[in-house]
């Protein structure tokens, strides 16, 4: 017994480290609640549904919430078909070596820094969007969602590919033993099996898209307004994250304006956490 009661340096050292990282995670969440929570509570629907944002006078978050939602949905519309097609092809039709090559390419694509996308967006994409659609300028919701579509492509592709690839080989063999072709095996066995994993991948990608700041901030136009009509993707907008990126420097830590920004951050955090948690649950639940 005494042997196990000895002082174990590692136990204490690792415990301290573990405590540190727990406190870090918990501390930041607690801070957001402490700073942004009362603001949402006091202002309620005036904040969540308000259309105008004039620091010092009124704070309406609706344009930002709309902007984040709009660019994310559009990005998914552009990205998901491409990501799923390449996930299916990579998992079902490529030999192992090529499969790893494609996945490696996706991994590298996932590593491209947001600011590089931002630069590409400012100097190439927004110009193309302007010229192709004959607009006055190319800083639009559409440009932001194009950039986001590329940024979330690797997330959706890699995770869905994992999901499709992990279909048990007995199921595949049973299906091809019945004379089904590769495509039929895919649609009748692999895809149904992978559906929760694919859904999870898409949710994680939504979480990433909502939180992306720098690239979106550079091309979205920075206009706190819901476009008229609301589906006009060729107009400028603002997402929650780009709002934080643009305005936080003006007010670091002070007053009502800061509380309003932290309230936005809290909303963003909740959205992202919910999507991520649900997405992870879907991916894991199906692996079991």
């Amino acid at each position, binding site marked *: 017994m005494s042997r196990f009661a000895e002082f174990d340096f590692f136990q204490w050292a690792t415990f301290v480290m*573990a405590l540190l990282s727990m406190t*870090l995670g918990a501390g930041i969440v607690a801070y957001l609640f402490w700073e942004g929570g009362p603001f949402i509570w006091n202002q309620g629907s005036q904040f969540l549904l308000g259309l105008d944002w004039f620091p010092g006078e009124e704070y309406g978050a609706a344009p930002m919430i709309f902007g984040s939602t709009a660019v994310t949905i559009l990005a998914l519309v552009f990205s998901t078909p491409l990501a799923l097609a390449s996930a299916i092809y990579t998992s079902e*039709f490529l030999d192992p070596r090529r499969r790893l090559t494609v996945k490696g390419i996706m*991994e590298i694509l996932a590593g491209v820094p947001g600011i590089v996308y931002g630069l*590409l967006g400012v100097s190439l994409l927004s110009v193309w969007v302007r010229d192709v659609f004959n607009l006055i300028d190319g800083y639009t919701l559409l440009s932001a969602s194009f950039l986001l579509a590329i940024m979330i492509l690797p997330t959706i592709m890699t995770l869905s590919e994992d999901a499709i690839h992990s279909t048990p080989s007995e199921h595949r063999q049973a299906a091809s033993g019945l004379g089904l072709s590769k495509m039929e095996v895919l649609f009748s066995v692999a895809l149904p099996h992978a559906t929760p994993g694919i859904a999870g991948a898409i949710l994680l990608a939504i*979480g990433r898209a*909502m939180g992306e700041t720098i690239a979106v901030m550079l091309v979205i136009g920075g206009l706190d307004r819901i476009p008229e009509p609301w589906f006009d993707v060729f107009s400028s907008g603002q997402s929650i994250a780009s709002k934080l990126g643009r305005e936080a420097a003006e007010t*670091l830590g002070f007053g009502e304006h800061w509380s309003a920004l932290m309230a936005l951050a809290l909303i*963003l*955090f909740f959205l992202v956490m919910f999507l991520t948690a649900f997405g992870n649950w879907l991916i894991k639940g199906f692996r079991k």
Partner: protein
Amino acid sequence: MTRIQKEKLFSGTLAFLTLFACSILAFILFAVFSRGLSALSWEFISSEATDFGSKGGILYQIFGTLLLMFASISICLPIALGTALYQTEYLKSSVWKKAFKIFMASLNGMPTIVLGLAGYLFFGKFLGIGVSWLTGALILAAMILPTAHAAILEAIETLPEHYQETSISLGLKPNQRILAVVIPHSVYGIVTGALLGLARAGGETAAIMFTATAFSGVSIPQSITEPVATLQTHILVLAQEATNPTALANAWGAASVLLGIVFFLILGAKAVRSRLSWEPEQ
């Protein structure tokens, strides 16, 4: 259309789309390097920026980015390793294990701009370090903690069970087990985690743009409370001057260097990880 033809059409379409998806990377590389390489020269990377970055080089920006990367990984790695070891070697309660997962996930899901602002308030304001490279390094350390932690945890958890069984049957105490078995055999995971963490830290802009960096008039910081210049924020500022061709050329040059650094680290991580999976199972 017969089944075979249908199948051919289907797989052909998919192949085309896959090729398209992969060519996006090629396009990005071409777009950045074809514009950046003309700006790149020894002079460009070895001289300081002048005229608010529209002329001159990016020496201090490279230094700042590297400083933030290495400072943040030095802070992060002990914490990530310690947390992973505590979780796997000491922690018994499954409730706490779950709690650890949830907290790591919430840190991972935290939008980086939010992390940067909250981190600034805590480190910069509350602890009084101000807008400085140390604040930035601490924030980045928190940001890459989940990345490094996940890679280390995976390496430890996938250790063959008989390693642990053998070490227990030899009567090794947990600390001896950590030193003799766990760390030596998960060293590839630790290296992978460190490299991926470095790559993430190097590519991050939103978390440091208000908290650690200054745009002009910055050289090598003389103390821990001074800001640095970084490649990321340099590109950010130059990108907004899209009408000035020399500024834009410098932005592409800086982007090429940044992309080069990040890709080098990611490829390194991939190489280390594949070395790990080649390790023969005994």
